Every structure is written in C-alpha cells, then in structure tokens.
C-alpha cells in the first residue's frame, strides 16, 4: 500500500513536470512562435513544425522546451538576432537557424544565451549567421550535436561559431563548426569540457582559448583553420586525444601555447601542420604520447619556456623535429622516438645508447635567417648538420634526449 502511494505521488509530480504542449505551425493552434511563447508558462513545450518562420528576434524568457519538428527554419533576414534565451532551464532542439544580422556593437547571433544556467541547445543547424551560438554569464549549459557553418572570408566580417564568455561548467560536445572566425571561442570560461567537436576551415582559429582555467578538451578534430588552435594565458588545461592537422601558413600552428602552465598535452595527433606545437612562455607542461607526423616543424619551443617535459612522443617525417630561438634550455626531452636518430642499441633494450640532439643546426640557421630555407637538403647543409651532431657548437649542447627510443611507440 505504501509503495503504491509513493508511485501515486511520483505520478502526480510527473504530470506537473510535463506541462502542456503548444503546437506552432501552419494549420496548428498557434501561427507564430512568439505568441506561443508568450502564452506558455514554465515547463511547457512549444513544438514548432516544419516551415519557414521570419519573426525577427524571438525572446525565450521562460523555462520552456522549444522543440522543432522536421527542422523548421528560423530566418533572421540578415537583420535580427534570431533566438535570445534569457531564462534558465530552457531546451532548444531541432531547428534550422539561418541568416542572422550583422553588427559589431551587439553581436547578433543565431542563438544567444544571457545570464542563465542549465540551458541545453542540441541538434540544430546554424547556417550563415554572424555569430553561431553565444553563451554569456552562463552556468552548467550544454551545447551538443549542432552543425554550424558560415562563409566568412575576413576576420572582421564574421563572428565566432560557438562563443563562450564568462561562463562556468559548460559542455560543448559533438558540434561541427566551419567557416566562422573562431570555431570555438572560450574567454573566462572555467571547469568546462569540449569533447568530440570538429572545427575546420575557419578564418582564424579552430579553437581560441583565453583566461579559461581548469578546462579540458578531448577528442576534437581541428583541421585546415587559418591559424590553427590558440591556447593562451591559462593554467590547468587538459588537451587529450585531439587531432590538429593541415594548418598551413607562417603564423599557423597546430597548437599555439602562450603563457600556459600546469597543463597536459597527451595522446594528440599533429600532422601536416607548418608548426605542430608552438610554445612561448609556457611552464610545467607535460607533453606525452603525442604523434608528430609530416609537420614542417614538430615543435617550436621558445627560450622563454621552462620545466616542460616532452616524453614518449613519436616524431616521424617532420622536416625539423624541434626548433628554438635561443640557447637557454630549461625543458627536458626524454624517451621520445625520433626517426632521424642514427644511433645504435648494443644491449637491445630498445633505448639508443647514444644521446640524441634533436635540434639540427639548420633549424637554428633558418630561425636566424628564414630565406636560408632555400638551401635545405643541399649537400653542404647535410654536411653542416652531420658535423654539428658530432660536435655541437652553435646549438645548445644540453638540448638533448638521453634515452631516445629505437622503435616508434604504438600510439
């Protein structure tokens, strides 16, 4: 009897949570989304069926479910911010949101969330918007499985794909972003996770990350972005299992680190970038089990970096594995596999018996005098490199891997 009562009580709650359904669409009870929202109360569901809706700026100021059926199109006619969410516990799902306005003063977006928490935005298509999804002063929000595309050509004419500012505990998962300024932008965002996103062909960065501590980004793909990925002025970031590829250009880096500390870079794949990782002013970072494959420069570690550990990585087929701009070395390189290593292993413990100098003299020459790249792979340069490997004179002699591996790691 007691159990039955419990169930009865639960059921009555369920009823309350469900709310009522307000149907919007041609031939439905409501013709416009705006009126449906204005007549809804908290916990109601506004269900929009397929069609094109040009209603200007739609403001969601109640904790409702806004659900699209057959991907209804919300069109901003290049004039309005399309969806403004100003309440917590809002769910937005299944829309095709396109043609937002363009303005540099108030940054009109496809979807913008103001000062809210527990908002979920999922399974939407956002096309040809200035900014895609914008979260400001948000907490515990979810942005999941959205596809954002735009056609930006210049940095100042296009906004970011997923823009997060002054927020906490966000989950950015499974989104696909292309053609925006920065694919994903984080500024003053803490305790958040960026997982399984694909960010490609954006005008500037695939991921732009500033003043955002204690975040992690895992299993994302950043490909062919104008300047790669930038992580700056941050500590305690975990970068795991991401792929950085085909970021080409002089100022394009697979991953650019500036003023980062106490972070992890583990299990990532850097392939075909002009520079795999560029480090400046970074300290106490562990770079482990990454793959550097067919990059122009595997890593560029500026002399301003200290106490970084580069261990157990594979360096294969890079033009230069490592390059630096000074003679000060405060980082350690141990137990990596370098395909340019030519030492031997007498006791067959898979560790080379001769230490390896990953810094080639020619990479130092090119750093001092970039046009010298013209002479790369000429006989004279190989001669210089060989003699420098035996007797280091120009390159710092403590730039050394004492335990280079004989075989590549299975990563």
């Amino acid at each position, binding site marked *: 009897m007691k159990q039955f009562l419990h169930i009865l009580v639960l059921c009555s709650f369920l009823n309350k949570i469900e709310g009522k359904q307000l149907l919007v669409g041609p031939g439905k009870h409501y013709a416009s989304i705006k009126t449906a929202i204005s007549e809804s109360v908290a916990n109601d569901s506004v269900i929009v069926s397929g069609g094109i809706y040009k209603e200007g700026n739609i403001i969601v100021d109640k904790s409702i479910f806004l659900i699209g059926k057959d991907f209804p199109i919300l069109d901003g006619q290049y004039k309005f911010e399309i969806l403004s969410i100003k309440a917590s516990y809002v769910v937005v799902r299944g829309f095709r949101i396109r043609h937002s306005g363009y303005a540099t003063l108030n940054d009109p977006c496809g979807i913008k969330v103001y000062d809210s928490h527990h908002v979920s935005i999922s399974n939407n298509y956002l096309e040809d918007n200035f900014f895609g999804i914008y979260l400001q002063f948000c907490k515990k929000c979810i942005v999941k499985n959205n596809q954002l595309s735009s056609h930006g050509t210049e940095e100042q004419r296009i906004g970011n794909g997923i823009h997060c500012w002054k927020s906490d505990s966000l989950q950015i998962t499974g989104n696909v972003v292309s053609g925006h300024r920065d694919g994903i932008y984080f500024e003053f965002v803490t305790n958040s996770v960026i997982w399984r996103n694909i960010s490609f062909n954006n005008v500037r960065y695939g991921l732009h990350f500033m003043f955002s501590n204690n975040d992690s980004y895992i299993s994302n793909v950043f490909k062919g972005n104008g300047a790669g990925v930038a992580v700056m002025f941050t500590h305690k970031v975990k970068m795991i299992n991401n792929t950085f590829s085909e970021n*080409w*250009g*002089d100022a*394009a880096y697979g991953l650019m680190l500036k003023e980062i500390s106490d972070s992890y870079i583990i299990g990532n794949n850097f392939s*075909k*970038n*002009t*520079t795999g990782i560029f480090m400046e002013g970074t300290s106490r970072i562990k770079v482990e089990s990454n793959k550097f494959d*067919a*990059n*122009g*420069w595997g890593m560029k570690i500026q002399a301003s970096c200290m106490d970084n550990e580069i261990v157990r990585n594979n360096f*294969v*087929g*890079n*033009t*230069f594995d490592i390059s630096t701009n000074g003679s000060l070395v405060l980082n350690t390189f141990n137990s990596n596999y370098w*395909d340019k290593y030519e030492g031997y292993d007498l006791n067959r413990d898979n560790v080379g018996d001769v230490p390896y100098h990953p810094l080639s003299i020619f990479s130092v020459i090119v750093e*001092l*005098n*970039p*046009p*010298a*790249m*013209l*002479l*790369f*792979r*000429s*006989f*004279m*340069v*190989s001669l210089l490199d060989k003699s420098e490997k035996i007797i280091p004179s120009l390159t710092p002699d403590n730039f050394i891997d004492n335990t280079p591996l004989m075989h590549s790691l299975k990563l």
Partner: protein
Amino acid sequence: MNRITKFIVLDILKNKIVLVYTLILSILSWSVFSLEDNATKGLLTLLNVILLTVPLVSVIFSTIYLYNSSEFIELLLSQPVKRARIWRSLFFGLSSSLLLSFLIGVGIPILVFAPSDVSMMMLLVGMFITTIFVAIAFLSSIVTRDKAKGIGISILLWLFFALLFDGIILFLLFQFSEYPIEKMMVGITALNPIDLARILILLHLDVSAMMGYTGAIFKDFFGTTVGEVVVFAILLLWIIVPFWTSLIKFKRKDL
C-alpha cells in the same frame, strides 16, 4: 645522324664503365629502399644520389669519352658528313645511353617501391640533370685540347654547382640578411641547375615547412604551374646553351 648515334650508343654500351654505373645506381637504389622502413627516407637518400653522383658521373664520363673519341671524330670528319651532325649525334648518343642507365638504375626501384608524384618528379629532374651535365661536358671538352685540363674543368664545374654555389648563397644570405632578398634569391638559384632541381623536389617533399613565410615566397613562384613550367624551361636552357656554345666552337675548330 641515326647511324652515328646508334654506333656511339653501341660503343658506350660495350664500355664497361656505363654498365658499372648502372649496376651501382641500381644496387644503391634497391638497398636504400629495402633498408629504410619508410619510403620517404629512401627518397631522401636517392635525392642526394641524384644531386651529387649523377652529375659527377655524367660530366666526367662524357668528358673522357669525348677526348678518347677524338680520333674517331677526325675519321668521321674526313667523310662527307656535316660537323654539326657529328657533334649532335655524339651528344644524343652519350646522353641517351646515360639516361638509359639512370632509368634502369634508379627509375625501376623508385617505381617499384615509392610510386608517387614526388618520385616521378625526381626521375624527371634526374634525367634533366644527366643531360645538363653531358652538355656541360661537351662545353668543357671543346674549350681546351688538353685532356687533363678538360677533365679538370669538368670536375671544377661539378664542384662549383654541387658545393661551392650553395656556400656562396649561404654567405650572401647572411651578408644581406637585413634586406628583403627572398625574391632575388629565387633569381639566383636559376644560375645553378642542381639547386633548381633540389627546390623542385623540396616543394613536393617538405610541403608543410614550405608553407612558412619564406617558404611561401618560393612556393608562390616554384610551386605554381607557371613557376614549374618556367623552372623546366630554365633547365632546358641549361641543356641548350652549353651545347649550342660547344657546337658553334666545334664548327669553327681547327682540328
């Protein structure tokens, strides 16, 4: 012309040196590919072979052959054959037999182990280098009658193109590092066929590094179709100009 060329090719094929050259090239290429675990490293080793060994052998062998066949040339001249025809036949015979041994020695292993656009480019470039250095040998052997002097000139030219030229460029780069000399450097490399060949391959092999700032300047020029056509045209000039000069000299030479 055909009969003289045929005769020369047969004569060279009977000559053991070209057979040994073919054998050495093929042993080198096969071993390079079977020893290295990735084909790119094999290609890099072969690049050094193409940029050093191939021009050296081409230039020295051709020079020596020309000096050794001076009596044969004199004999031919007593026949009613035009001088230009004899000289051209010699050139075609020498370069085609060296090209043949290059294609057998390097071409087959490359096509077996690493068939890609880079390796095709390497083959093409290697063929150009062979022919260019045969042409240079013709020029240096016509300049002087003295065999030792002629061979000396050939070796010096090889040394200059393979080594000294790069040293001079590096020196210039550091002397003028304050100035925007990238574009000028592109022009200067046209003065050395080995450098041109190397850069052509570099643009295919190290494409990521070449996308950097200065690399981009070279890529903008050499990497485009127009640039590549221009480079091949310059390489062609490197064959035509030395040979043409030697031909003119040969026509007027008092033998």
